[in-house]
């Protein structure tokens, strides 16, 4: 999709407004193709919000990402990442990072919802990218069966079939997906934060993404039929439990069986 914005005129206020309008038209049009209920996904960010976001960005983000979002040695360029990426990274507390490490950790958000929105509007105003998804895609009322199949094919290898997360290389990990807000799950798929690959709308359509969210929310709402999950971590956790408590009980019973009654 043609989403490359002209960056030459980015300081001209009218150009940014025009770019937002074009970006909204494109993404909104894209959604309308897939979902009849989809409307233009974000309320038009006002110029004051963008200005507010610019100030916040300069104070909190620019030291790593550069004043013009061009990136520095410390952080990647944010041109073209879109509002969705900002909302995910800042909304889950991953950004601003507490420290450099294998990956940015989730923590309590540093910004209010309003400030996050302003930052997102500012970043999106400079070059178009994926927008924050429409609420109709986040209702978790899609097809959980289809979502489960897509999840097993595209996500389960890293995030575990029950969404319990898992280890990657060199200290990185795929986080657990339980308790993650639907909007953040959607934004992660569309933007591919950190080492997660991008799942654009041609790979998983917005409806597919809604189904994946439906599956994850179904898992959250319904208890495991097999009893206590032990974190859904599979053979390691289950094996440890059996070794300690199962064998422990057998040893204790054997000692009791063979001890002489007093």
């Amino acid at each position, binding site marked *: 999709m043609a989403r490359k914005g002209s960056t030459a005129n980015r300081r001209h206020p009218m150009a940014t407004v025009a770019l937002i309008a074009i970006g909204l038209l494109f993404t909104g049009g894209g959604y309308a193709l897939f979902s009849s209920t989809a409307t233009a996904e974000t309320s038009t960010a006002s110029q004051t919000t963008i200005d507010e976001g610019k100030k916040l960005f300069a104070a909190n983000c620019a030291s790593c990402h550069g004043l013009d979002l061009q990136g520095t040695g410390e952080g990647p360029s944010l041109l073209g990442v879109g509002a969705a990426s900002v909302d995910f990274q800042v909304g889950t507390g991953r950004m601003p990072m507490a420290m450099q490490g294998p990956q940015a950790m989730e923590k309590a958000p540093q910004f209010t919802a309003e400030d996050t929105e302003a930052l997102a509007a500012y970043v999106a105003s400079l070059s178009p990218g994926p927008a924050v998804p429409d609420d109709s895609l986040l209702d978790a009322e899609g097809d959980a069966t289809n979502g489960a199949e897509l999840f097993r094919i595209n996500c389960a*290898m890293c995030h575990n079939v029950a969404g319990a997360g898992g280890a990657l290389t060199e200290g990185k990990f795929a986080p657990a997906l339980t308790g993650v807000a639907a909007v953040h799950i959607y934004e992660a798929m569309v933007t*591919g934060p950190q080492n997660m690959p991008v799942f*654009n709308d041609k*790979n998983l359509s917005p409806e597919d993404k809604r189904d994946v969210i439906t599956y994850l929310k179904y898992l959250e709402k319904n*208890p*495991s039929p097999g009893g206590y999950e032990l974190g859904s971590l599979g053979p390691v956790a289950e094996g440890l439990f059996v070794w300690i408590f199962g064998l422990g009980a057998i040893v204790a019973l054997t000692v009791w069986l063979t001890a*002489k*009654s007093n």
Partner: protein
Amino acid sequence: MAHDDLSGKDITAVSSADVSHETAAPGTAVVPSETFENPGFPAHRPRVTDTDPKAEKKAERQVYTFFYLSIVGSIFAIASYMAFPIEDGDTGALRLHTMMLGIGIVLALFGLGLGAVHWSKSLMANHEGIDQRHAVRGSEETRARAVEIFKEANEESGFGRRTLVRNTLLGALVAFPLPAVVLFRGWGPQDENPVELLEHTMWEKGARLTLDPSGLPIKASDVTLGSAFHVIPEGLNESEHRLEEKAKASVLLMRLDPAKLKESPERAGWSYDGIVAYSKICTHVGCPVALYEQQTHHLLCPCHQSTFDVTEECKVIFGPAKRALPQLPIAVDGEGYLIAQSDFHEPVGPSFWERSSS
């Protein structure tokens, strides 16, 4: 001392003096002279239940309480089977059903077991006894008789004399397992060379790369930077052996910055504008490798942590795998869809006996 311990009456309390090594039982082999003195049993110690009638009563109460508990458990299991039915589509109901049934059955079995063990330990007769071990070797008499029986049987049946009967019997026994060999062979590929099947996949020149599971073709422009697509060959879903073909032909499609790809001259043209396709089947033991990290370009196998570097033609950088993941040469057709240039240039997946390339 009698050696037959099956009658029960021989199990008697003996004093420790009776079991010195001079009276060692037959079958206990050589007794070296420097062996230490058999210390015999420790002194007999009566239990509380032997001396205190109150403790005995208490133990009795405990034992029958265990048995009562077992009965309660059985009834509880029956009751909970009816009280907590499995409701269609409700995993919570299923979980409750299994748990309550389990509690009842555990109570029933544990009550029985605990009661029985406690009974035998605290109330049954308290005295030490010895059962002598049987000699392993039979007496000369018994052995001679056994040989005699074999000879008699041979004569009476004519096993040694009627050679044709004997040989046909042996032949029949040899032939009997042969159908199993044929039956098991029938499970394998028919009229096809299994080596051939392992060396080739569904990919062929011009086959479109399609999305797993929908089978929709993929345009090169759909694969944005940082994307990972799980890919099956065109027509796989309609294939007669869908799963067998999928197990060989699964592909992971990724788009990297073309500047980051290090391609050898013989593979020039196998990728398209930074889009590369690699077999998803690990060369170690065949797990699906798909844990792709879009920044480091590591591809990790979840089974044994083999790690492949996508920028360097998926060579192994960690773990037990020995070979790089096979690359699928791709191109773009006239309509912009991604197609395969050919099949993989080497067999996918783990090594096998007849694998042509090492």
